[in-house]
């Protein structure tokens, strides 16, 4: 786990295209197995992102909130 490549995408203050769209766009360009950490100030993303991740079949690594910013970690599985 310690060797995971983590790419951080700062989507705070993003209302359009929206943090989830930012995540979808960025994940497409990553390698299978890599982890993306999405930073979002939009609390809707905290619900939106896991819904999409599960539907598509990637893996939710974890979510935590720090000072109003959600840190959402997703592993690309396919």
């Amino acid at each position, binding site marked *: 786990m310690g060797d995971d490549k983590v790419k951080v995408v700062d989507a705070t203050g993003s209302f359009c295209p929206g943090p989830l769209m930012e995540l979808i766009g960025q994940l497409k360009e990553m390698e299978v197995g890599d982890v993306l950490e999405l930073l979002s100030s939009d609390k809707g993303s905290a619900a939106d992102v896991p819904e999409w991740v599960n*539907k598509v079949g990637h893996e939710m690594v974890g979510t935590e909130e720090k000072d109003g910013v959600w840190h959402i970690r997703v592993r690309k599985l396919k």
Partner: protein
Amino acid sequence: MRILIVGGGMGGTILANNLARRLHREMRDGKVAIQMLSASDRHMYQPGLLYVAVGRMMPQDLYRDQASLLEPGIEFHVDPVEEFELDANRVKTKSGKAYGYDVLVIATGSRIYPEGIPGLEEHGEFFYTEASALKLFRRLREFEGGKVVIAVGVPHKCPMAPLEITFMLHDYFKDRGLLDKTQLHYTYPIGRTHGLENVAKWATPEFERLGISYETLFNLKEVDGKRKVLLSEEGSETPYDLLISIPAHRGMEVIEKNGLGKSGWIPTDRHRLNMEGRENVYVLGDTTNLPISKAGSTAHFEADTLGENLAAMIRVGAPVRDYDGKVFCFIEAGKDRATYAMFNYQNPPDPKPPTQAMHWFKMAYNQLYWASARGIL
């Protein structure tokens, strides 16, 4: 001080004119020189392509000579950049010339990338280039009914264009007496009908009222042209008779080739607009990696901020303000009704019910754009 602007579209043109107006004395005295390099001698008002697709504007209405839009004193060359040598403060162009600078501004825009989805280029219709908008116009003329799917990919330029084409097509088919035989179906990548939550809140009941079906959490993976079916990343299948797509975009190849940013998006400071890690390189418009709308108005407001800041840096040695993420977009809600959305990094938009007056304002803006590009508005 030599300022070199690469790209003569919305962002580059507005910035060049803004600077030339602010710094005309310095230019006259030989202290400041502004050069622009672009890939075309013409300037296209891209939002007009939407109207070309439904036969309400002609392609030639969308163009002006780029040189005619620029303030006197701006040196303009049609000579696309091929190599960015940022460490040497120099770019090399297609003609083989090298251009040096003290400050570089990159505004090369973005492009649709249907090649990224198997089958999309062959089987989809688009309206993001002159040729594809005309092709769609002809397809629509011949269309006699069936299922029309509008499939949206991300990121794309103009956040409202997918909704606008959908609403405009509704009225187009109605006017041609084809609505009874036509099913409009809209797909969107995330769990609502638009990236901006308040825009989705407005658009979804509008879709329902007009009988437009939609599927959210739909990311196009492949187009099976033989079966006329769209396959999504999420595992669903959607049949179509006519496929209209706003494919995911990329920035320009030259950006990627020169290692300035993955997929052609340049990492950019969200307030100062400089390229990350470079003090004398700035980025405007679609080619930034900022998580905000890729829109002409974004490029416009960024250019206003950068123009003011560069002029202040030359005069008093420091920038005067931050870009706040401001964007303003009209939203055509049919053939004769429109609304708008205004937002920035801190404040989401709040679209109002559409009116005819707002539609006419948009039609007027389609002409006023040329004054805005000249830096007058």
